[in-house]
C-alpha cells in the first residue's frame, strides 16, 4: 500500500495541472463561443481545393 504515498500526490498534481489548463483555456476565451468554431473547422479544406 505504500505506493499510495507516491501515486496519490502524483494523481493530485495531475488533477491540478488539468485544472490550470482548463482555467487558462477559459480565460483565453476558448469557451466563449461554442457554436462557431465547429463550423469554422470545415473551411480550410474547401479553400485549398479551389
Amino acid at each position: 500500500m505504500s505506493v499510495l504515498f507516491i501515486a496519490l500526490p502524483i494523481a493530485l498534481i495531475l488533477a491540478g495541472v488539468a485544472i490550470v489548463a482548463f482555467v487558462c483555456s477559459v480565460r483565453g476565451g476558448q469557451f466563449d463561443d461554442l457554436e462557431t468554431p465547429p463550423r469554422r473547422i470545415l473551411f480550410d479544406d474547401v479553400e485549398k481545393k479551389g
Partner: protein
Amino acid sequence: MSVITKPPRQLEIADDVSNQPAVCAHCGLAVPDSLVDSGSSDQFCCQGCRTAYQLIYECGLQAFYAMAEQSAAASFAGRDSAKRFEHVDTPSFISTFGQTHENGVGEIRFALEGIHCAACVWLIEKLPQILPAVLEARVNWSKRTVDVRWQLADIKLSRVVQTLAELGYYPHPLRAGAQHQQAIVENRRQLIRLAVAGAAAGNNMLIAAALYLGMFQHMAASVEMLLRWSSCLVGLVSLLWPGQVFLRGAIAAIRTRTPHMDLPVALGLSVGGVAGLLHTISGRGEIYFDSLSVLVFLLLLGRWIQYRQQCRAADAIEMLHQLTPHMTRKLVDGEFVETPIDLIDQGDILEVRAGETIPVDGQLQVGDTSVDEAILTGESTPRIIRPGDAVSAGTLNLQDVIRVQALAVGSATRIARIVGLVEQSQRQKPQLVQWADRIGGYFVGIVIVLAVTVLSAWLLVEPSQAVDRAVALLIVACPCALALATPLAISVALGRAAQRRILDKTGTLTQGKMRMVDWIGDERYKPAVAAIEQTSSHPAAVAIHSGLRGEFAGSKDSFLQLSATDVSQSDAGGIRGCVAGEQFLLGSQTFLAKNQIAITDRFHPAAKAMIDKSLTPIFVAVNGQVVAVAAVGDALRPDAKKSVQALQQSGWQVGILSGDQPQIVKNIGAQLEIDPDRCWGGLLPEDKVAIVQRSAQAGTVVMVGDGVNDSAALAAATVGIATHNGAEASLQAAPVYLGQPGLAGVLELIDASRSTMRAIRRNFAASLAYNIIGVGLAAAGWINPLVAAVLMPLSSLTVVSLSLTTRTFSRKRP
C-alpha cells in the same frame, strides 16, 4: 462589386466568349480578360467566386442562383449607394460603436442580417481576402455578430460596411458595451467554478472510496492519515474556491436580512469544513470533505443550468433594443446626413424612407404615409398619417418618404419605456424561487434550533459525543436537494418546452397578417393583378401579391414575365396600372365609384358575403369592367375554434380583448362561438388591464396576448401567456412565452404547468424527507461518514431523476 446591377445569367458562354463580355457565374460581375477560361462554360471573376460556386454546386444548392436573382432586386433596393455608408467614417461613429488602438488598428462589432449557415460564416471570415486592409473578421454564430479589425490608415470603415452589405449581410452597429463584457466574464467565472468543483468532487470520491473500503479491511494508520489529509486538501480547495460563492451569498443575505437558499447551504458547508479540518488535524472523528465537494459541485451545476436560461432571456432583451434603428438621416444644412441615433437631439429633422422603422417619437412634418403600429397598439391595419400627426419610434413607415421632427429620443421614447418595464419584470425572480428562498430562511432557523436541542440533550446523556452529533446534524440537514429542486424542475420543463417548439412564433386567434382569402371571378387576370400589386407596399396589395404568388409557385415563368407599367396609387384606396396593353383598376368600392365604374350584380352578393365575414373586398376592373373580386382579411387560425371549444369544455370562460374595431371582434367572436358580451373591441392597453383586473377578482385569469401592447395586461393576469407576433423579443413581460401556432398550445401548457408544479412539489417532498431522515439519524447518533456520504448524493440524485422523468409535455397534440 454590386449585387444589384446584375445582368442576366449566361450559362452558355463558351462558344462566343470573344463576342460577349464574360460574366462571373457566381456574382454576376464582368470577368477580367486575363481570367477568362475559354475551355469552361462557367467564368469567374475571382477565386473566391469560383470556390463559392463550386461549393454551392457540390452541395446541390444551385437553386440558390435562381432565388438570388429574384430576391436581389427586392431586398437590396435603396441600399446600394456608397454614400449611404459615409457616416461610419466619422470619428464620432467609431468612438461610439467601436474602438481604435494606438497601433493604428480599429475594432468594431456589427450585428449582421442574414447569417444562415456555415457557408455564411466562411464567406464573412474571408473578408480580409476581399479587402486586404481588413486584418480579421470573426463571426459569432449564435449571436449573429462579427468582430472586424482593420488598418485605420489603409481603408475606410465605410468600404468595409459596404462590402459586408454587398455580400448580403447587412451590418448594424452594436455597442461593444460593458454589459456584454460583463456577461462574458460572468460566464467564464461560472465555468471555472464548475470545473474546479467537478474535479474536486471526482477526486474526493475516489479518495473516499479508498477510505471506506479501508474501514472494513484495517488499513495501515499511516495510509489512512495520507488519505484523510488528501481528502481534506481537495475538500478545502473545493470549499474555498468554488464554494466561496455560497458563503458570499449567505453573508449578503444576512446583511440585507433577506432569507435565501444560500443561508442553510453555507451553514452546512462551513460547519462541515471546520469540523472536518479539526478532525483531520486531530486524526480522529469523521471528515465530511467528500460529501461537501460533491454538494458544492451539484449545487453549482444546478445554478449554472439556471444561469444559461437567464442568458437566453437577456439575449431576448438585447433584441428588443434592436427594435429601433441605430442610424438615421438627419437634416444638416439642407442635406440629410447619416447619423447614429445617439447623436440625435430633440427638434432634429429626420428623413425616414418607406419600409424603414421610425427611430424616434416625433411629429410628422412632410409626407403622407401610413404606418404599421402593430408593435405598440396591436392594431393590424396600418394608420394613415398626415403632417402634424404624432409618430412613435419602432413603428414601420409603409408608403412614402417622410420627414419627422424628433420630440423624444432614446430612452424617452414610448417603446424604450415599454422595454424598460419588461426588463424590470425580467429582473424579478419567479414566485417559486422566491418561495424556495423563504423556505431556506425558515430552514436555517429550524436546523439551528434542532442542533441546539440535540447538543443539549446529548450533553446530558453523553457529553463527549454531544458536539460531534450536533455537527453531523448540521451537515446532514444541509438542504442540497432542496436548493436543486426548483431550478431543475423549471429548467427541465423549459427544455421540454423548447423541444416541443413551444418557443417559436405565431399569432393567437387570427393569423395576425392580412391575407388573400378568396378570389371570385375571372382567373385569367391573376398574373396581371399580381404584377401590379407587386409594386405597392400597401398591406392589401402585399396580401394579394403574396397570395397569388403562392398559387403560381409551380409555374413562376408565366407569372414573372408580366410587368406593369404606368402604375399609380391613389389616396382613395386603390391602384391603377397597365399590363399587356390593358388598363387595370384595383381597389375598394369607393375607388371604383370615383372612377365611374359600376359594380355589376354578379359581384354584389359576393362582396356582401365577404363584408359579413369581416373581410375586405378588393375589386378588379379591366378596361372599365369589373371582372373579379378578391377577399382580403385577417383569417382565423385553423385550430382556433377547436381550441376555444376545448377550453370552454374544461370550464374556462373565454373572452376576447382587442384593439381592433368592435364589429370585427364581434364577428370573430361569433365565428368562434364566444359570448358576444365577452368580446371587447376598440380597447386601449389600459382598458385591457382594467378588464383583466376586474375578472381577476372573480378567479384565476389566464391572459393570452401577442405583443408589446398587451404586456401590461399580461402582467396583471394571474397567468400571462405571450404568443409570438412581429416583435420577437417583446414577450418577456409574460411569465410564459408560447410559440406554438394558436391556442392549442395553451391547452398543452395548462397541462404542462400542472405537471411541472407536481414535479416541484414532489422534489420538495423528496428532499425534505431525506433531510428529516438524516436529521433523525444524526440526532440519534447513528450517522457515520458512510451513511452521510450515501445519503447526501442519493437525495440529490433522487431530485434530479424525479425532474428528468416528469412527463411535462408528454400529452399527444391533437
